[in-house]
């Protein structure tokens, strides 16, 4: 078997990057920010306690899998999906699709992707990439986090696809089976914005959306009590930077990419106020970036006393206030 001709592109995020690459391959020209925005990707959730996390954490995008589902619903694309109870069945299906020349997205535990440097790896069952070929006992992978296609051992892909635990991939595969020849983006854009505003402002859950940012600000000062020691606390505080910047967000916890979406959307739906809001979100993102840099600095310096943790809390609380105003304006702008 050889490699399927596939236009590899880097993306900010694994799921939106994977969907964008597959849609482009199937003939629908669309940008990653447009996919992210239409899919209502922007989000916030804080988890102080969770059975699968050893320490409090937060998320800045919607539930894994929802981007694909929202794109399917809003753009009229049909994705063919597969999940498997039997590993062998899943292995044979992937080989079969590649033999037919179909590049296919695969959901995996990021930890087993042996092309990723050790310091970046973590057990996260919701990494997405496109498998574009197989040579001997290695798969050829188009992973949007990497500048070029990479090679992955057969056994590593098997472990990644069939890892157990929270949000277990169960060998999940998907590819676009039908893509409309022409897509009118106006309604999908407005629907995507409407749902994003609902998620950020109105979801009746105390740890989601703006309420989630406020909860994060309130509870981050308790982190020192939960850490094993100062180095553990330093590691967890520095992870704020990683979660906002490095784990495929396009910078500032997806705020920069969403601002790009709003700028592109403004012209398509002919609403100049969206362009103004996109500039405002870029500035809001700069504030999140400031939090990232602050967290990295105090973590590195082990300067993690009550005063610095309170300062961090204030910076986060300030983001809650500006994002609440922003999403209310955004909601109003599309009425």
């Amino acid at each position, binding site marked *: 078997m050889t490699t399927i001709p596939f236009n590899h592109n880097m993306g*900010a995020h694994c799921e939106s990057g994977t969907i964008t690459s597959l849609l482009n391959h199937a003939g629908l020209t669309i940008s990653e920010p447009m996919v992210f925005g239409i899919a209502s990707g922007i989000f916030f959730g804080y988890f102080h306690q969770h059975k699968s996390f050893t320490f409090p954490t937060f998320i800045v995008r919607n539930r894994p899998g929802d981007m694909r589902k929202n794109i399917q619903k809003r753009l009229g694309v049909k994705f063919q999906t597969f999940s498997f109870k039997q590993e062998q069945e899943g292995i044979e299906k992937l080989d079969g699709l590649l033999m037919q020349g179909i590049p296919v997205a695969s959901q995996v535990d990021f930890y087993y992707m042996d092309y990723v440097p050790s310091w970046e790896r973590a057990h996260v069952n919701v990494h997405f990439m496109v498998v574009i070929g197989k040579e001997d006992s290695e798969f050829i992978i188009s992973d949007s986090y990497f500048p070029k296609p990479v090679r992955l051992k057969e056994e590593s892909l098997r472990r990644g696809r069939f890892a157990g635990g929270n949000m277990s991939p169960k060998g999940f595969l998907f590819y676009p089976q039908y893509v409309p020849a022409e897509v009118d983006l106006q309604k999908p854009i407005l629907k995507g914005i409407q749902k994003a505003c609902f998620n950020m402002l109105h979801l009746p859950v105390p740890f989601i959306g703006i309420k989630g940012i406020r909860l994060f600000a309130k509870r981050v000062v308790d982190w020192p009590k939960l850490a094993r020691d100062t180095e553990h606390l330093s590691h967890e505080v520095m992870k704020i930077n990683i979660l906002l910047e490095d784990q495929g967000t396009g910078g500032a916890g997806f705020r920069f990419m969403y601002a790009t979406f709003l700028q592109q959307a403004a012209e398509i739906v002919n609403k100049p106020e969206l362009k103004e809001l996109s500039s405002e979100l870029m500035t809001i993102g700069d504030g999140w970036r400031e939090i990232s840099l602050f967290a990295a600095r105090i973590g590195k310096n082990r300067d993690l006393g009550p005063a610095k943790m309170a300062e961090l809390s204030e910076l986060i609380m300030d983001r809650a206030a500006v994002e609440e105003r922003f999403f209310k304006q955004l909601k109003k702008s599309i009425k």
Partner: protein
Amino acid sequence: MKEKEGFVDCPEQQMILYVEKEDGQFGPMQTGSYITKNYINDYFTKRNNLVHSLREQISRREISPVKLFMVLEDLTTKELSARTRIPSRKIKKHILPVHFEQLSEDLLHRYAAVFNVTVEQLLKADPGTEPLHDESPKR
């Protein structure tokens, strides 16, 4: 963020950052990881200290290698249970040396597979050598 402020020279970890270009348009730029560029050595220092501390606990027979890998790989008992298909109550026993030493070949293999190490590495509590920053793979 302006494009000129977004560039970080870090070939070890490249990424896409959305920035404001000179013409006022927002778009992607390929750049490097700020935290990897500036703080990777701090990560390795903390990790090496953690491995050292956990190994000392193993030598004092306070914990087993299962606990070492759980801590290093950030896995809760419930998460490890779901991944190994070993009940949580048994895992709580296996993090103690006295029970770990009686583990069957099958259970050792199940733990090793999830931790992505060989059984020999598991028994020796050897997480492998972290590449130094300068030796890290280039992208």
